[in-house]
């Protein structure tokens, strides 16, 4: 007996978003990266087009987070305090497809660096690598608005992914993205309706939908994944089912979230059942990334080079077979 594969074809698809701009497009990147565009659930090649492999970005810092583990520092050694050099290493050696520049140091309590200094850091990274750039901020509204405005202006035309705005603080940064042509991350706290509401607010102020990436604020393994996993699955099923305000690509910060919890920082001696610390760090981020890819992640910002290698290999294998390369 032959077996008929049970297919469920969706009537709608997720928007395809482009990050970065080449010289012809008004930027300085060597190429752009497309995310999203899916017409089927994650990895369901058999029932719909999945035009873009989920993209893997890595992150560099204006000020290194105090909790950044030593075993990660060891991968960067002398370049860790130089965001440009670190970005280059991420791209050349560890295969980063985009670079996120985290501007945590501009937070008034974490260094209070000025907007001008932030611009310098971002420009340093733009000069060091040719891949598209993500610019990642924080939740101190007053400061980050000032910083992002300057950064958006200074990088006009680059189509950076500006990460992030939230419901209580979206207008200034969204307006800067429109004015200087950047793409935007709409972040909402683990809730489908709040996510949708923010997308509606953005499109109501004429923000172009094809410049929105969603971040449903996923944590790492053991920190609410039972919620975030299902929120992402529901966002994706609803998006494919025709809810336009949920049909955006989704971003996951698996690196930032994974390396600030005790599970990736407690030595084996303190908790023998948790096993070897360094491999645990890579496992933890890999497990977070793989499960959230299954739930619908289109873009990951990762930290651990071993996890990056593992996850990228899985994605490349799958997309190579399916596109018949």
């Amino acid at each position, binding site marked *: 007996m032959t*077996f008929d594969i049970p297919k469920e074809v969706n009537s709608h698809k997720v928007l395809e978003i482009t990050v970065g701009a080449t010289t012809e497009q008004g930027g300085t990147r060597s190429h752009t990266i497309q995310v999203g565009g899916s017409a089927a659930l994650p990895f369901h090649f058999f029932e719909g087009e999945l035009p873009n492999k989920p993209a893997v970005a890595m992150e560099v810092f204006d000020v290194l987070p105090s909790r950044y583990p030593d075993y990660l520092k060891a991968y960067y050694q002398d370049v860790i305090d130089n965001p440009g050099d670190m970005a280059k290493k991420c791209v050349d050696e560890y295969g980063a497809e985009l670079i996120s520049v985290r501007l945590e140091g501009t937070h008034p309590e974490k260094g209070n660096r000025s907007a001008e200094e932030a611009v310098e850091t971002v420009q340093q990274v733009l000069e060091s690598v040719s891949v598209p750039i993500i610019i990642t901020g924080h*939740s101190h509204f007053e400061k980050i608005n000032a910083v992002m405005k300057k950064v958006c202006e200074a990088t006009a035309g680059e189509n950076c992914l500006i990460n992030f705005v939230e419901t209580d603080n979206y207008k200034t940064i969204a307006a800067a993205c429109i004015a200087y042509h950047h793409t935007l991350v709409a972040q909402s706290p683990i809730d489908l309706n709040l996510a949708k509401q923010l997308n509606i607010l953005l499109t109501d102020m004429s923000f172009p939908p094809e410049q929105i990436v969603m971040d449903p604020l996923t944590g790492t393994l053991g920190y609410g994944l039972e919620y975030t996993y299902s929120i992402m699955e529901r966002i994706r099923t609803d998006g494919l089912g025709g809810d336009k305000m949920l049909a955006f690509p989704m971003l996951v910060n698996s690196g930032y979230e994974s390396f600030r919890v005790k599970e990736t920082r407690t030595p084996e001696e303190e908790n023998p059942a948790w096993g070897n610390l360094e491999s645990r760090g890579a496992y933890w981020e890999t497990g977070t990334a793989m499960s959230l890819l299954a739930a619908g992640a289109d873009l990951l910002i990762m930290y651990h080079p071993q996890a990056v290698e593992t996850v990228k290999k899985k994605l490349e294998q799958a997309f190579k077979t399916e596109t018949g390369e």
Partner: protein
Amino acid sequence: MMALSGLDIFKLLPKTNCGDCGVPTCMAFAMKLAQKKAELSECPHASEDAASAIGAASEPPIRLVKIGGGSAFEAGNETVMFRHEKTFFHPTGIAIQLRTTEAKELLSKKIKEVEDYSVERVGEELKADLFFITHDSDSSEDLLSTIQLAKQNSSKGIILDCPEENTLRAALEMLANDRPAIFNRKEPSEQIVSLVRESGASLVLTSPSLDDLVSQSQKIREAGVNSIILNLESHNSIDQLQHNTFIRRSALKNNFKPLGYPILKFIRGNSPYDNLADAALLTCKYSSIVVLPEYDKAQLFTLLTLRQSIYTDPQKPIQVDAKVYPIGDPTPDSPVFVTTNFSLTYFIVSGEIENSGISAHLLIVDTEGQSVLTAWAAGKFVGEKIAKFIKDVNLEEEVKTRKIVIPGLVSQISGDLEENLAGWEVIVGCQEASDIPSFIKSVDLT
């Protein structure tokens, strides 16, 4: 979906109201059948058509399969494609591979370690579930002694991968009361099928082709074996995810019986990192058993934590025990923080206090797993309740400090709490957990 209504069943009955089943009318009997309070065999006049229709309807779309004696491992009986539609019922079983060519001392050590391995998370003890014994030595003695070691040192269920029939027969005799699963690398012979039928074991069917797997499954079902596990070999884990989706969808949506069984996946990547990635993906997407080729504590801890999340009932928030948790190395003078017993709240708040570098007492109040605002709105996280809990756990004798920090989201309870808690200073904390480290720097908590 698959269940027949009372009326559907009534149509299949003789409609004679003879009462031979002990119920006065056929309609009443049909209602009892629909509620599974009666069995069709109680009706002496039911036709064969009725028996097969009602029998098939009562069979769950994905059969429950058990491995091991005593408190056996269970897989199957799932009812949904997405956990948010209801819940996933039977967590993916983690099997650790043992090879009979491994030195006996090492095997014995590994078995004991896996048996003893346990990690606590939100009140649950997380463990591996099964051993997968691969007979790759030339001597049947090696298999028998490995089984012996596993039986002596562990109560976990066993999956046997033994391509040699006579050896398998001897092994099954040793496991007569242990309900093992027999892993077949190719279509099992009639002898193996009859062995399994006699022993109560289950059969793992293997094929790289879905059509072939369906035909194997049909044959085995016809031979009277219904304890089946499916192993559809795939190129990579993303390929496997698609195959697993076909299988579960066919079972649930089309009630396609030959695929209505749990799925086993033998993980064999190029590195432990690969293996973790594959096992994580397939824990989310429909593998009921994953076999890991290595015993690696960090890998196991990661996978067990993921499994707990995916197989938690989405309707019931995970709760932590209501009590005082030490953060860092608190002394009686260290400050007290209070929040709810919603697990996510607990994990995030305890993590952020830890990140601040100070030591503290974290008082977790029972709010039935609700988060701060929800619990406050429901009257479960209010001054009176918190004050009472502080008395119940004798906190005033345990600590000397009289400073307690409440979540910024419920600043409105501070007056109420102070009234109920004489001698304490109630400090309103920040609204977002991520601001805890900077909040701690900004106030005097000593």
